[in-house]
C-alpha cells in the first residue's frame, strides 16, 4: 500500500497542478484571446513560443529554466533583488516551470474556442450596449465554456504527468518538490515495484478518466497540434 511519503507526493502534485492551472488560466486567457483575434505580425512568433514545450524535450526546457532562474540567470538576479531568492529547487520554481511547460495545453483549446465564436456575437453585444469587457464576461466566456473546461482539464492533467522539467528545476526534495512522477521513479530505482504499481496505476486511471470525460461527456477534441 501507499506510505505516508507517497501521500505527501500526491498532495504536493495536486497543489502544484492546481496552482499551475490557475496561473495558466489567468495568463493563458488574455494570451489566447489576443492570439485568436490579432492581425499582428508577431502572432506567428508568439504562437511558436507558446507551442514550443509540445515538441521540446522537457529536459531542454528544464535546463534553460534552471539557468535563467538560477542565481546568475536574468530572472534569478531579478528574484534575488526582489528578496525572494532563487526559484530552482523550490515549490514556487516548480509552479513556474509547470506553467511554462503546460501552457500550450491551456492556450490552444482556448484559442480555438475564441476563434470559433467569431466576430458576430461580439458585434451584436456591442449594439446591445455591452462594453468590450462586459461582452467578454457575458458572451465570450459562456460561449467558450467547453474550451475552458478542456483547457482546465488538460492543463491540470498534463502538469500532473510531467517528469523531466520537474526533475531539472525542482529536483527530488521530499515535501517540497517531490511529485508523483518522481516518486514512481524513486520506487523503481529502489526496486519497490508494488509501491510503484499503486502510484503508476493511479496515474493511469486518472489520465484515462480525464480523457474519457473530454471525449465522451464534453464531446470535445483536445486540440493539440
Amino acid at each position, binding site marked *: 500500500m501507499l506510505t505516508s511519503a507517497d501521500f505527501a507526493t500526491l498532495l504536493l502534485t495536486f497543489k502544484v497542478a492546481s496552482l499551475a492551472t490557475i496561473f495558466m488560466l489567468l495568463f493563458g486567457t488574455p494570451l489566447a484571446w489576443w492570439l485568436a483575434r490579432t492581425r499582428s505580425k508577431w502572432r506567428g512568433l508568439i504562437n511558436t513560443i507558446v507551442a514550443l514545450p509540445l515538441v521540446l524535450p522537457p529536459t531542454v526546457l528544464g535546463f534553460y529554466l534552471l539557468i535563467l532562474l538560477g542565481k546568475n540567470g536574468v530572472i534569478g538576479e531579478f528574484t534575488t533583488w526582489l528578496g525572494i531568492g532563487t526559484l530552482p529547487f523550490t515549490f514556487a520554481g516548480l509552479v513556474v516551470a509547470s506553467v511554462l511547460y503546460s501552457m500550450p495545453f491551456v492556450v490552444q483549446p482556448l484559442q480555438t474556442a475564441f476563434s470559433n465564436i467569431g466576430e*458576430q*456575437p461580439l*458585434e*451584436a*453585444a*456591442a*449594439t*446591445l*450596449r*455591452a*462594453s*468590450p469587457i*462586459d461582452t467578454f464576461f*457575458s*458572451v465570450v466566456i*459562456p*460561449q467558450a*465554456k467547453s474550451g475552458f473546461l478542456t483547457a482546465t482539464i488538460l492543463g491540470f492533467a498534463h502538469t500532473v504527468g510531467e517528469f523531466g522539467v520537474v526533475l531539472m528545476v525542482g529536483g527530488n526534495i521530499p515535501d517540497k518538490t517531490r511529485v508523483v512522477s518522481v516518486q514512481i521513479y524513486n520506487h523503481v530505482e529502489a526496486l519497490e515495484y508494488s509501491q510503484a504499481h499503486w502510484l503508476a496505476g493511479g496515474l493511469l486511471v486518472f489520465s484515462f478518466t480525464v480523457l474519457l470525460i473530454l471525449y465522451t461527456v464534453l464531446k470535445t477534441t483536445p486540440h493539440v497540434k
Partner: protein
Amino acid sequence: MNRKLNKFITARFKLDHGDFQLSVNLRLPNSGVTVLFGHSGSGKTTLLRCIAGLQKAQQSYLEINGSVWEDSDVGAFLPTHKRPLGYVFQEANLFSHLTVHENLNFGLKRIKASFNNAKFEQIIHLLGIKHLLERMPERLSGGEKQRVAIARALVLNPEILLMDEPLASLDAKRKQEILPFLGRLNQELNIPVLYVTHSHQEVAQLADYLVVLEAGKVQASGLLSETLSRLDLPLSQDREATTVWNVTIVEHETEFHLTRVAFEGGSLSLPAIDAKIGTPLRVQIYARDVSIVLEVPRATSILNVLPATIMDIADGESGQTIVRLKVGNQPLLAHITRKSAVVLNLKIGKDVFVQIKGMSILN
C-alpha cells in the same frame, strides 16, 4: 413640433480599402423608413456599419438628432455600445447560450432608462414571439430568429433602428411572414429605421425615403416616389420599375366589389379592400402596366384612366421608351414601346391620359 425639426441624420464618411472606396455625404430625415438601396459591393452595408460604429472610416462626421457620434476632425468617436441605436444583422445573430427571453433582456439590463413593461409586451405581441420566449435560439426557424432579433433591438427604444438586409437569408415564404411586421413597426412604435436592401420589392413596400448607392457613392437621395421616377437612375429602366403612391380609402362600391382610394389630385378604383374609410394604403404601380392615350377612350375595360402631363422622356433598353408623368401631384412611370412614343408624338409638357392596367396594394 420643434423637436421634430431636429430629427436629421448627417453622415459624411470617406473610407478606402484599396479595392473599395466609400465616399458619402448625406443628410437624411431621421423619421419613417429610409432605405439604402444598391447592388452588392455598392457600399450600403459598409455605410450602415459605419453609422453603427462597427467600422471606422478614415474621415467621418456623423450627427444623429443633433448629437455628434463621430467627428474625425476632432478625433471624436462614440463606441458602438454607447450609441443609442438598434441593429438587426443579416443573420439573426442571437446569443446561442441564452434563451429568447434572455436575448431580449440582454440589452435592456444595460440601459439606464426605466424599463417599460407595456412597451416590451407591445413589441413581443407585434412580432408574434410570445410563445417562443423560453426557447433556445437553435430551436427557432429562420423567420422566428429574425423576429426575435428585431424585437431585441426594438425593446431598447433606440433613437434609430439600423437593419442590414434582415430578410436576405430567408426564403420567399418567410419574407412574406416578416414584411408586414416591418411595415407596422414604424407606424406603431415611431422608431426611425435605416434599412439596407437590394430588393426592389422591399424598397416599394417599406421606404419613405430612398438612397441609391453605387460603387461607394450616393447616386440619388430623396423621397421614395420622386426617386423611383427619376429617369436618370437605373431604377426607372429596370423591368421591375415602379411608382409607389400613398392613398386613402374614400368609398366602397360594394355592388362592383370595388374600393375607391384618393391621392393628391385624383382617385383610383381598386378591387374591394376590407378596411375602413380613411385607412391609408400604399399602392404600387408597375411602369409596364401603364399605357398612354391621347384622348379618353370612349369604351374601355380599364377602370383607371387618369389625366396626366408628360414631365420627362428617356430611351430605355431594347426599343423601350420611359416616360415620367404627373398625375395630380403624383409622379408616375410608364414603359411604352419607342414606336408608340413616335406615333403618339409624345413631348415633354404634353397633356395625355394614362390607363393603369393593374396595381398592387402593399399593406
